[in-house]
């Protein structure tokens, strides 16, 4: 919206809304937060950035009273508080907009807003008037009487913000608010945030998307490995410097050495389209090819069709039209299982939901997706001995840290679960590997290992479709990058001469295709 309103960032005259000193939080075996210090001034947007797993979310839960800190002090508007439940935080004037919306679909906006705060204005006419008033005051444009299920993502987020304001919050935490938004909605959200700032609220904005942070925040605090590294002002830093602060010095490089040489096309996707129930295009005429020994990276803001693309190629999405040809087999009429048998390995985006049977032993997880193929099966029977032996092979080759093959998958850490999945999907000599966010939420060691395995397999001729939100990973690993925006491929880039900034603007539709 208006740029004039942004006063001198970090204006030292503005009073402190939040002051965190020495916050620490441990979980069994993990230090989530350690000596976190943050000052948030009233009337500013303060961003907290850090990689996945850096401890941002834990910190915000502490500030919202969901989890108590083990050490440190919290001051809100100058007085020290102890927050042992969200109710305490609300009372202290802190509100939170969760990344996964906390809304009941089958209740109206009004009902969602007044829930838990019925004492303020009741649940009837007075409350409705108050909702309208707040909505108008901050330009939220929320109708109190529609069902939440009828709202889009952006509108739901505004309802969440309204919920917080209705409770009289003076400090608002937004946890990764842009993760689910399309670019226009992000702009609207930022407009709303500036509106809040103007009214004297303090906004804490959690993100790992640097461009957004730089465009909206007045101050930025960087968190790395659970602790605050530095607080900077956007004018003083570039997004590259910020990235370096975020990952520290030991940024593992996913770089590859030589270019793919083969000209043989292994996957040819032509005119792939998919529509949702309302007729909106999720995928719109997507066409690309992957050659033997080539890694094709797909860049895009989440929710622009990446998940649908993967599921369409895997045959998990009925209704997709267009042709998908793997070497010379037409995949279109094949079931998911047949496609796997034809030589597709699949590292799913959400390993716990799509990749594993959490309560089954590792060897049964080895069989999953391979239940029709040797070594784990012959004919209609499962070969338990062979499956166990091959699981042990994966454990050794992929350095899965586990006491044995009979441990339930749930007991493994995220990184080890992911290494097991990668090992499994590389089994049976796949022609094509679909890797959706292969290193999301895994530790640095496992990340490097997974990159290595992908690289080695590529050298042996594996084609890889790589979807990732981590632009460094995309640039480092891919031979070619396609940018997806609203279900369309909008530009192709050569990773050797593209910057994250260029990719970023293509992803939001701001730049022109190279």
């Amino acid at each position, binding site marked *: 919206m208006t740029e004039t309103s942004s006063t001198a960032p970090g204006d030292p005259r503005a009073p402190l809304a939040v002051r965190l000193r020495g916050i620490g939080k441990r979980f069994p075996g993990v230090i989530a937060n350690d000596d976190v210090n943050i000052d948030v001034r009233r009337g500013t947007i303060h961003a907290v950035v850090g990689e996945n797993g850096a401890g941002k979310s834990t910190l915000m*839960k502490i500030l*919202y009273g*969901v989890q108590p800190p083990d050490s440190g002090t919290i001051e809100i508007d100058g007085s020290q508080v102890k927050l042992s*439940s*969200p*109710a305490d935080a*609300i009372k202290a004037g802190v509100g*939170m907009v*969760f990344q996964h919306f*906390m*809304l*009941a*679909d*089958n*209740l109206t906006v009004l*009902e*969602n807003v*007044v*829930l*838990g*705060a*019925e*004492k303020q204005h*009741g*649940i009837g006419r007075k409350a409705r008037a108050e909702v309208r008033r707040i909505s108008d005051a901050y330009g939220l444009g929320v109708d109190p009487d529609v*069902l939440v*299920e*009828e709202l889009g993502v952006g509108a739901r987020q505004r309802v969440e913000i309204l*919920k917080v304001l209705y409770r009289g919050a003076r400090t608002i935490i937004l946890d990764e608010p842009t993760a689910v938004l399309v670019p226009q909605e992000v702009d609207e959200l930022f407009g709303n945030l500036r509106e809040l700032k103007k009214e004297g609220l303090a906004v804490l904005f959690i993100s790992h998307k640097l461009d957004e942070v730089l465009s909206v925040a007045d101050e930025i605090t960087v968190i790395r490995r659970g602790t605050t590294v530095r607080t900077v002002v956007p004018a003083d830093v570039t997004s590259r410097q910020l990235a370096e602060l975020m990952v520290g010095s030991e940024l593992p490089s996913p770089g590859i050495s030589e270019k793919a040489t083969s000209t043989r096309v292994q996957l040819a996707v032509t005119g792939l389209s998919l529509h*949702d*129930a*309302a007729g909106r295009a999720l995928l719109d005429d997507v066409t690309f090819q992957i050659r033997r020994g080539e890694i094709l990276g797909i860049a895009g803001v989440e929710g622009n069709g990446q998940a649908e693309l993967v*599921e369409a190629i895997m045959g*998990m*999405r009925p209704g997709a039209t267009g042709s998908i040809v793997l070497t010379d087999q037409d995949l279109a009429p094949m079931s998911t299982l047949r496609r796997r048998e034809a030589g597709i390995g699949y590292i799913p985006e959400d390993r716990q939901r799509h990749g594993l049977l959490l309560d089954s032993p590792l060897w049964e997880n080895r069989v999953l997706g391979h239940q029709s193929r040797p070594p784990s099966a012959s004919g209609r029977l499962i070969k338990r001995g062979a499956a166990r032996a091959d699981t042990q092979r994966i454990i050794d080759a992929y350095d899965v840290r586990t006491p044995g093959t009979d441990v339930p998958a749930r007991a493994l850490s995220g990184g080890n679960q992911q290494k097991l999945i990668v090992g499994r999907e590389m089994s049976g000599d796949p022609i094509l590997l679909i890797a959706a966010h292969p290193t999301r939420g895994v530790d640095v060691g496992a990340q490097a290992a997974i990159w290595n395995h992908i690289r080695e397999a590529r050298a042996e001729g594996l084609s890889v479709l790589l979807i990732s939100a981590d632009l460094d990973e995309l640039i480092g690993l891919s031979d070619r990058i396609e940018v997806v925006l609203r279900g369309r491929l909008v530009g192709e880039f050569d990773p050797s001469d593209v910057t994250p900034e260029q990719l970023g603007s293509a992803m939001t539709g701001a730049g022109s295709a190279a």
Partner: protein
Amino acid sequence: MSVVTDPVAPTPAPASSRGRRLRPAYWWLLGIGGFIALLSLLERVTGADDLTSAGTVGATLIATMPIMLAALGGLWAERAGVVNIGLEGMMILGTFGAGFFAFTYGPWIGVAGSVALGMVGGLVHALATVVFGVDHIISGVAINIIALGAVQYLASLTFSGVEGGGPTQSPKIGDVPTISFPALGDRLGEIEDTNWFFVSELAAIARALVTNLSVLVLISLALVVLTYVVLWRTAFGLRLRACGESPAAAESLGVAVMRYKFVAVLISGGLAGLAGGFLAMVASSNYREGQTGGRGYIGLAAMIFGNWRPGGLLAGSGLFGYTETLGLRQGGTSVRALLLLVSLLAIAFAIWQVRRSNFTTATVVFIIGAAVGAVYLSIDQVPGDFTRMTPYVITLLVLAFASQRLRMPAADGQVYRKGSAG
């Protein structure tokens, strides 16, 4: 358990263009009036003149109440997100509670006793599902087993050797007072006898309402209204419903989810118990083993039929109570007459579906309609067995063909653990 789940659909498509939920009251009046008119017409076409007699209406009222109370019990629990298959068991407890307490202390204590014993069932269900996180269906099944055994055991303990009682039944127990306006009833009876289209039917209904009307019927009907007011018009109700729609959201806003669920299941048990008490005291005059006859499940069906709304479940219970009554009174002829209605309605619906180019549904519904019509023409009487299974068949059909229009609480049947917010 969820009544409508799609195991594979990746993302649910929001049904956007559905109408507002709150239908104006006149829709209800119009619907009821239309139904009566249809029945009235049907009587004249088929000669099945017991369809709307005052006797039928009165008996329907009696048959409807237990189903409706059970459904109401189901509504309270499910609106808070707890599926209650144990309604049947809680009803059984209620029948015994009424039998025992009414026999010992008189009718009103009997009513209280049935509610109290139903609440004991609710307490077990609440402890198991809310506190210990047991699957709701498993707990419900267990309660049905326990309740049946417990009541048989207790009845044998308390009623054996008592005059008029025995291990399977209590002695005769008193009824709560009934209300009658004989003068008004007689006048209405005269109008009913005139056999004017629609008017005589209305008179029959009114006559049933002013003749020997049990106070418990009034209380039951009041409970439906009370349920609506509490659940949809108070902060308590909003919180309770939020627990069934999105417990995580409710908890993130400081609602004590566990406490609301617990209370809801207790109330659910109490209502189911009252349903049992009604059976023992009003629909009959003592506790008898097997008295519930699966009405707890019919109540569940009525609640689903009614789309988890008080008005809807009232309509569902009324429909099921009506078919039950017809089955008992000159069943064959009356139900046969209804077949004609069903057949015509189905065919009309099919035509409507064709106009909306919904050809699969139209074909299926048309075939059903035609088949029902053929049955109507080919038989003189509907066997009682088929009358008895009508509620269940209707519920299955509703689930199969209208499941998109049903809207159960979103978190219904899910075990919720504290601290899942955020």
